[in-house]
């Protein structure tokens, strides 16, 4: 036995090992793959650097005051980002308040209540909502939602609640139809598909044995959702909500059409405002290169990037594997 083994390596007639592909092809592919990964990082870095460098004149000119100054005064070259930042945050928050309960309802319906033949169509319909281009939402909002708000919703609310002592301020002003509230409604409709899809997927991962035990003990559907499903999926649900929030923060064209484009902070829900995305969309075409106005817009873009980054980082933190209720 050992003679055969000892003789084998020296023999020239031993079978050749089949070549497992040329080494060059592997190397090229590895290079392309690494290059693509690097390209994404470089692009991201380039965007951040461009925004920051472009916004530097504004930051230098206005300092930290840029974040809290509500003045947007082109003739005197004074620009403050507070109105845009406030508008971005408040429309996103109201959009979340409106969309999270509805998304939750859609997810419960699709996982627990709907008959099985209805689940597919409704699920597809909700996902199709996500495929609608955002400018179509903007045009629909301006052509359909704004007149509806201006004719049927705002006048009665303003007439009846506008003069009340504490909450009257929320309903004051003229019934323009456009404004913070209408923009929030449009945003809510746009982010419902994302949040409800995440919720539905994560509700389906709850082990059936938990739910069946609860039903067996006599729980109602609501008690099962509240005490079994939600605590089990709590972290992922919050992660999905953060995803929707990230989309709402950056939405441009849909908001520009319906927000009223005013550089003021008003206490009224129906008052006009601006978000970072909408003020950039509006003012960019008329900002001469190298001007303080353009630099302020780039600075606002950088601030939006920072806000989105914080939101996404938070959602990643909450969605990391191994963190369960």
């Amino acid at each position, binding site marked *: 036995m050992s003679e055969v083994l000892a003789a084998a390596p020296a023999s020239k007639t031993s079978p050749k090992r089949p070549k497992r592909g040329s080494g060059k092809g592997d190397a090229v592919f590895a290079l392309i793959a690494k290059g693509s990964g690097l390209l994404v990082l470089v692009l991201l870095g380039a965007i951040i650097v461009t925004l920051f460098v472009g916004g530097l004149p504004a930051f230098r000119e206005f300092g930290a005051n840029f974040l809290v100054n509500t003045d947007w005064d*082109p*003739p005197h070259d004074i620009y403050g980002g507070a109105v845009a930042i406030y508008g971005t945050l408040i429309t996103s928050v109201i959009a979340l308040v409106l969309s999270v309960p509805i998304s939750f309802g859609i997810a419960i319906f699709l996982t627990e209540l709907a008959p099985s033949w209805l689940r597919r169509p409704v699920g597809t319909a909700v996902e199709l909502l996500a495929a609608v281009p955002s400018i179509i939402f903007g045009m629909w909002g301006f052509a359909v939602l704004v007149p509806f708000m201006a004719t049927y919703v705002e006048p009665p609310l303003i007439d009846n609640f506008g003069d009340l002592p504490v909450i009257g301020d929320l309903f004051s*002003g003229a019934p*323009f139809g456009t404004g913070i509230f209408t923009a929030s409604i449009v945003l809510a409709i746009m982010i419902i598909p994302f949040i409800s899809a995440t919720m539905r997927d994560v509700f389906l991962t709850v082990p059936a044995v938990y739910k069946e035990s609860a039903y067996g003990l006599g729980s109602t559907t609501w008690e099962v959702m509240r005490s079994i499903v939600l605590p089990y999926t709590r972290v992922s649900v919050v992660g999905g909500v953060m995803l929707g929030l990230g989309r709402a923060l950056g939405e441009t064209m849909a908001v520009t059409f319906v927000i009223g484009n005013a550089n003021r902070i008003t206490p009224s829900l129906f008052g006009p405002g601006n978000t970072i995305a909408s003020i950039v969309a509006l003012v960019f075409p008329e900002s*001469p290169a190298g001007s303080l106005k353009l630099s302020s817009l780039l600075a606002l873009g950088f601030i939006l990037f920072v806000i989105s980054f914080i939101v996404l980082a938070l959602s990643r933190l909450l969605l990391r594997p191994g963190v369960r209720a």
Partner: protein
Amino acid sequence: MKYTTLLLASAALICGAGVVEPAAAQQITGAGATFPAPVYTKWGEAAKSAIGVELNYQAIGSGGGQNQIMNRTVDFGASDAPVDAAKLASNNLVQFPMVMGAVVPIVNLPGIEADQLKLTGDVLADIYEGKITKWNDPKIEALNQGLKLPSIAIAPVYRADASGTSYVFTSYLSAVSPSWKSSVGASTSVKWPVGNGARGNDGVAGSVKQVRGGIGYVENAYASQNHLATTELKNKDGEFVKPTMESFQAAASNADWKDAKDYAVSLIDQPGKTSWPIVSATFLLLPKDAKDPAREQLVLKWVNWDYEHGDQIATQLEYVPLPAAVKDMVRATWKQQLAYK
């Protein structure tokens, strides 16, 4: 085999389509003011069939028009706000007028018809400053004895984008209201104290149309095209005038073109019993150092055609054409500065 024949056939089709080209019209591109957009569009259509020059005009506002021509991304820029001499020189631009038009206030009040409501310049300024907030305010009622004004909030609409129409309107408000002049001023883009913004003249018209109690300012063509109620204004001579072609022409006849630097006349608040107080010329901006001189000559060919044959189209849309003498002055400027033949 079938696949390759299909491939060859489609390739042949594409090449064939490329060879047989219809005689394409020569294109010129422009961007800027929404103020003259209705008349430029009509002129563009007429010129296409008459002289084969096709106009591609983007109405993005005077500020956008100025910016684009300074960046040389279009063949010409259109602006109602005249560019000052220093900026024209530093950007190597030539400015000349095309046509004159009027800015009219529009309102959306239940029960109020066109040209029924009377307003004055300082009441308008107070409305846009937020000093007058309800339609049945004593100041408005004093001007409109006998008209039943509802007790609803005034909803002012202004131009959100940098607009020549805003420049004209705020120039008028600055001329008639010292408080407006000191607190807000006149520019294409000001710090509006109250109200909502809309994009373009058409955006303002659309906004006012759907807000109960809305008031806005648009170029006259947008008011008539959208069937919006215009108001009467008190002019310099103290008369209340309706926004009609005659009142626009009365104001325009006062223009002193010879003494205006770069043709930047002001037609705001002109004297005359029948003059409309908010009239303005609208300008075209062309580069002295055009990248494509042949295209620039095409633009001048189009403008010359508009001067010679476009007056009827303009008056139909209630714009005031330039006097013949001014057109000759402009042609001389082209010969001098733009190598026009």
